[in-house]
């Protein structure tokens, strides 16, 4: 009986706090919503007009591609670097735990602060990035990190990787501790070297964790907003814009709430697909 109460409570929570906003967003995306009727529930139905308008907006396609590149690069880099760092800190050297904890500092900072920080680092003339790269003779002329449309997406991606990697690292580190030490001992006795142990024990046992981390990073990165808002506002020319920021701009800066909601729906569909993958991975993990 109590178990059913638990079920009912969580269902109710999901319906009210997750389900309603999603439904509300979907409803808005097929309506003509203006400042004048935003408080009404019944608004003119326009079918898929908002979706068509979003799709035909040239900036939407740029932003869709940007989002794919941004999320893809973030997932690969955050999981990859997170794994490398977790393995590194799993070595027992003095201060390993403390240092690993300190790495989390970046995850604790508010995204707006991180954005302001990286904007400063990436400033063309007095930024640290160009200074260091020039001193190391890696670049000859200054890079316009945030004002060159061909570079700005890379710049915000680097900043977001720095921001999110510690979180990925901690999750992977947690996964590492669940691999029984005996397996490594047995493998060593059988003559397996470090590389063989990594390829045949660590990675296979860690695989479900890595998939789960990749899903979480995807979801977190899909909703990246503050960091990019602080660094470039999506510019120049939408070159660093992503779906949630575009949705915000359409709704709250240009007052096209329906189109903004339609863009939001695209994000939702992608996140939903990833979330389903995540849940299935978790299930397989618990069954396995």
């Amino acid at each position, binding site marked *: 009986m109590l178990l059913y109460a638990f079920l009912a409570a969580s269902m109710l929570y999901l319906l009210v706090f997750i389900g309603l906003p999603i439904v509300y967003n979907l409803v808005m995306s097929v309506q003509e919503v203006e400042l004048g009727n935003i408080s009404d529930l019944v608004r003119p139905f326009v079918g898929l007009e908002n979706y068509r308008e979003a799709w035909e907006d040239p900036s939407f396609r740029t932003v869709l591609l940007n989002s794919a590149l941004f999320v893809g690069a973030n997932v690969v880099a955050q999981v990859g670097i997170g794994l490398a760092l977790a393995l590194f800190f799993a070595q027992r050297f003095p201060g390993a735990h403390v240092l690993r904890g300190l790495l989390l500092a970046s995850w604790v900072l508010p995204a707006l602060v991180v954005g302001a920080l990286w904007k400063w680092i990436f400033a*063309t003339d007095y930024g640290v990035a160009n200074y260091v790269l020039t001193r190391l003779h890696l670049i000859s002329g200054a890079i*316009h990190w945030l004002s060159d449309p061909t570079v700005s997406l890379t710049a915000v991606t680097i900043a977001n990787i720095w921001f999110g990697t510690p979180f990925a690292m901690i999750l992977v580190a947690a996964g590492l501790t669940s691999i029984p030490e005996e397996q490594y001992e047995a493998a060593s006795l059988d003559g397996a070297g470090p590389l063989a142990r990594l390829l045949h024990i660590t990675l296979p046992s860690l695989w479900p964790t890595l998939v789960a981390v990749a899903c979480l990073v995807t979801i977190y990165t899909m909703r990246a907003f503050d960091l990019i808002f602080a660094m470039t*506002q999506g*510019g*120049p020319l939408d070159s660093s814009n992503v779906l949630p920021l575009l949705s915000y701009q359409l*709704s*709250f800066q240009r007052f096209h709430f329906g189109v903004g909601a339609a863009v939001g729906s695209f994000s939702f569909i992608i996140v939903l697909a990833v979330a389903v993958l995540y849940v299935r991975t978790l299930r397989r993990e618990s069954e396995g």
Partner: protein
Amino acid sequence: MLRRTFLASSAAAAGFSANVARAEPATVSLWHVFNLDTDMIYGGMKAFNESQSAYRIEPRLVPGVQIVTELIRAIATGSVPDLVTLDSPVVASFSAQGTLTDLTDQVVQSKFIKPDVYFKGPWASGQWRGKTYGIPRDANTLGLYYNADMFRAKGMDPDKPPRTWSELKAAAQKLRDPAKNVYGFGFCATQAEEGVFQWLPFLWQAGGSVDKLDQPEAAAALQYVTDMVQQGLASKDVINQSQYEVTNTFMAGNIAMSQGGPWELPRMSKQAKFEWRLAPLPVKDDKQIKADCLGGYDFVVPKGAGQVEGAFRFIEFMSNPKILNEGWKSGRIGPRTDVMVQDPLWPQAYATYRGEMSYARPRGPHPQWPDISRPMQTAIQQALTGAKSPADALREAAAKVDPILAKTPL
């Protein structure tokens, strides 16, 4: 309310005047964006609350970038504040959609708020189809800040700031010093409203206008700022520097001259470690048109506000020239022609900005101003990054702006 009437009547019955038995003042909720404690709104609220007992202002400070979002949320949920300060170009979007309280009757009856004492531009921002939805709280324009020490170091006379486009460019060329990371000129060209705010003066000085973006005048205006960037007189980073950051760069000594507003004065006077001065924006040599862009905040009362009367009383209170005089302490110019600060802080800056008020032009008012502004932002960024020529970029912008203006003209 019930409690108030009860108290008042029982007090009267007991032979006391209603004034003695103090009724609870009605709360008037105010959302504003002014985070400097020297802003006139703080002294205004205190004086207002002390001057009468019927209303009490309950302020909430909302960051400037969030106030529109917050107001939309409030409108959508039907729980609006009584009074909000809004950036003047967005007011028309709200008033045209019927989300604000019509204050026309209150203004007609008001002793203090007379439309003809206001500068035309600020007053127009609160108007829509002959009705009043917003009352200007303050105004601002842009000026040319310049580093007098750098002028002297380059053998230039700081008493003779550039007065024309060609002088501005020549000065920027002389002042530029790549070895020291110093650019000649700085302005804001972000993909945001403030980028348009900073470019419109050039458009108007060139004899162009928002409804004629495909004309050579507009192209000349965009070409001018594009040349500044492509010839290295201004940093390429201007397309990603907010006005706040442009001023930071100026104060750090990395720009010799920068375009900026009076709201920068409080931090300029504290943080700039050199002699800075201010000049009116230059004019285009062959046109000699003085033009500047108007900014500022309006007081608006959202529709459905519970305390329209109290809100309007506070607007009246804040529109008193005595209070408006205080605005200059945080770099806010009175939107009324009868406000002239005697013996002001930063006298030279005051004279400059106050003088510009006579020819500064408003953005709009137009309910679709954000949709008009956006194509201009894109055109500016296309030209500055070299993605398109200024003329091509503006032709594209005109193709988006013109249909909007054909439906609802400026």
